[in-house]
């Protein structure tokens, strides 16, 4: 099989991993090197689904021994098996990196033979990049369920970020989609190995939304636990999409809006400091209702408009159209002794008036009906 066919097959097999972040605090030293890590993510292209292409995202092999029912690489699926040699993958990646097509490498794999054997092959690739090619750019290394602790440590020394996919919010839900993975020993324990290995850019994970019958509350409770106990940088949510040839091909596709609502809530929990309990209050049958979660929460919370010159920060960030930055700017204006008197001042600050106005009182006036 020629290299272009491998790029096509293994790139397509790896596209379901959604992480596109490419920043790292690691410093690239010396002049005898190629590449560095950027402070913030740089996108090199956008696909037809609107997603950023920043990393060269690929599997080492798609020939898997696992039985995950949602996955196109699983043992259930008839597929054309493909596998990179470490030297071949390193060459392809460097060819793209030198021409500024990609920002870094995202290396994952199906589990061929055993997690340890597959991980060794992946590590050989990254060692070639760091050693022979003197590559000091970004590498995201996917840890495979059940892999040995020593290999996790080696991966952490060679890579910027590590991750292992949870796929489901708990062991009971995971057992609905696979019989071969143990949630606690194969996945959670590996997350703790990664945590203890201290990769420079931390650890992330991904959950399939709608692959089993999990509720949004289960997913968000898991996310809260992961951020608190495991210390994850990010949890990614991937809406389930049935794949032909898998046992779940007849299952309904999960609407992308559900994924978007989970990201909205995740962002508000992490960046706004809003606790999960407040989102429980707006849930219907343990799921977030259709529409914007913040709007639902605001309608539930505010029975009268807020005075923009009196409301504390915690109330302001709960108003749709006002985020942490705008709320801080409002407080900064008030702290300087000024009062906000006009809509145009809020607009200048960055408040999205169309969303915020129904909940605010500006200069004594307010919109008489909530939107």
């Amino acid at each position, binding site marked *: 099989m020629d290299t*272009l066919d491998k790029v096509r097959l293994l790139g*397509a097999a790896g596209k379901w991993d959604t992480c596109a972040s490419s920043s790292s605090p690691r410093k690239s030293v010396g002049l005898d090197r190629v590449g560095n890590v950027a402070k913030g993510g740089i996108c090199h*292209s*956008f696909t*037809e*689904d*609107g997603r950023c292409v920043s990393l060269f995202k690929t599997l080492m092999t798609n020939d898997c021994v696992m039985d995950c029912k949602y996955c196109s690489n699983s043992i259930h699926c008839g597929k054309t098996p493909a596998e990179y040699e470490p030297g071949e993958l390193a060459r392809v990646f460097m060819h793209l990196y030198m021409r500024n097509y990609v920002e870094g490498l995202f290396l994952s794999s199906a589990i061929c033979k055993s997690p340890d054997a597959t991980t060794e092959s992946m590590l050989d690739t990254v060692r070639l990049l760091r050693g022979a090619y003197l590559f000091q750019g970004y590498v995201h290394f996917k840890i495979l369920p059940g892999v040995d602790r020593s290999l996790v440590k080696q991966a952490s020394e060679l890579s910027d970020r590590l991750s292992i996919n949870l796929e489901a919010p708990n062991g009971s839900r995971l057992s609905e989609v696979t019989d071969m993975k143990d949630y606690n020993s194969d996945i959670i324990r590996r997350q703790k190995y990664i945590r203890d290995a201290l990769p420079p850019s931390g650890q992330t994970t991904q959950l399939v939304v709608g692959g089993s019958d999990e509720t949004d509350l289960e997913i968000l409770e898991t996310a809260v636990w992961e951020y608190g106990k495991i210390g994850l940088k990010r949890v990614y949510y991937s809406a389930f999409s049935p794949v032909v040839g898998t046992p779940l091909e007849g299952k309904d596709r999960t*609407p992308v809006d559900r994924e978007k609502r989970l990201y909205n809530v995740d962002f508000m929990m992490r960046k706004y400091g809003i606790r999960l309990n407040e989102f429980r209050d707006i849930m219907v049958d343990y799921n977030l209702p259709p529409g914007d979660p913040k709007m639902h929460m605001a309608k539930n919370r505010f029975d009268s408009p807020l005075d923009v010159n009196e409301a504390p920060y915690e109330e302001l960030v709960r108003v749709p159209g006002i985020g942490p930055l705008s709320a801080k700017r409002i407080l*900064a*204006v008030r702290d300087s002794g000024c009062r906000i008197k006009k809509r145009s001042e809020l607009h200048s600050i960055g408040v999205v008036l169309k969303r915020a106005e129904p909940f605010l009182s500006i200069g004594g006036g307010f919109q008489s009906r909530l939107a």
Partner: protein
Amino acid sequence: MAARHRDFDDRILQAVLSQDDALVSACATPESRSLHNMHSCVSRSLCKAEGFTRLEVSGNTLYGRVELEHDIMDLLLSHFHRRYPGYDVALGQGNETFVMDAYGRVRVCKCGIDRYLIENGIPNAAEPDSDQLFETYYLSQCIKERRNVGLMRKMMPRKHSRLNHIEHMLNNAGARITDF
């Protein structure tokens, strides 16, 4: 950063300098908001240029073509110099070529990139499979069930889509699929 914007006017800066610091930092005046917007615009333009400029490799030289709206050529050259130390970086814009050598020194040549390469004896390194490799990878990444060409068009300027060889997709694609 705002001063690099093509529409920057020193009068805006003078107006902002006479305003209250708290109001300026909160962007609470039209002038400070305008300055902030210019800053954001230039930063976005630089980010796009860093992401979408494609380079070719010929020996110790990396070269490419750019179309920059704002005065950010030095920043772009510095970015590539940090990324590829040890290489000369030559970026052609119109009838000028800007070159940063391996030591970080910049010179401007009053000729287009093609003539610069010829005059400096740099062989044309364009490999026929270079674009095909990226296009093969690029096409493998789309999840067609999530197709949202409107978002793609919003995020990727037309001029960059040419560099990514996907202009035909933007021209022929339909509206957003809303079948969810």
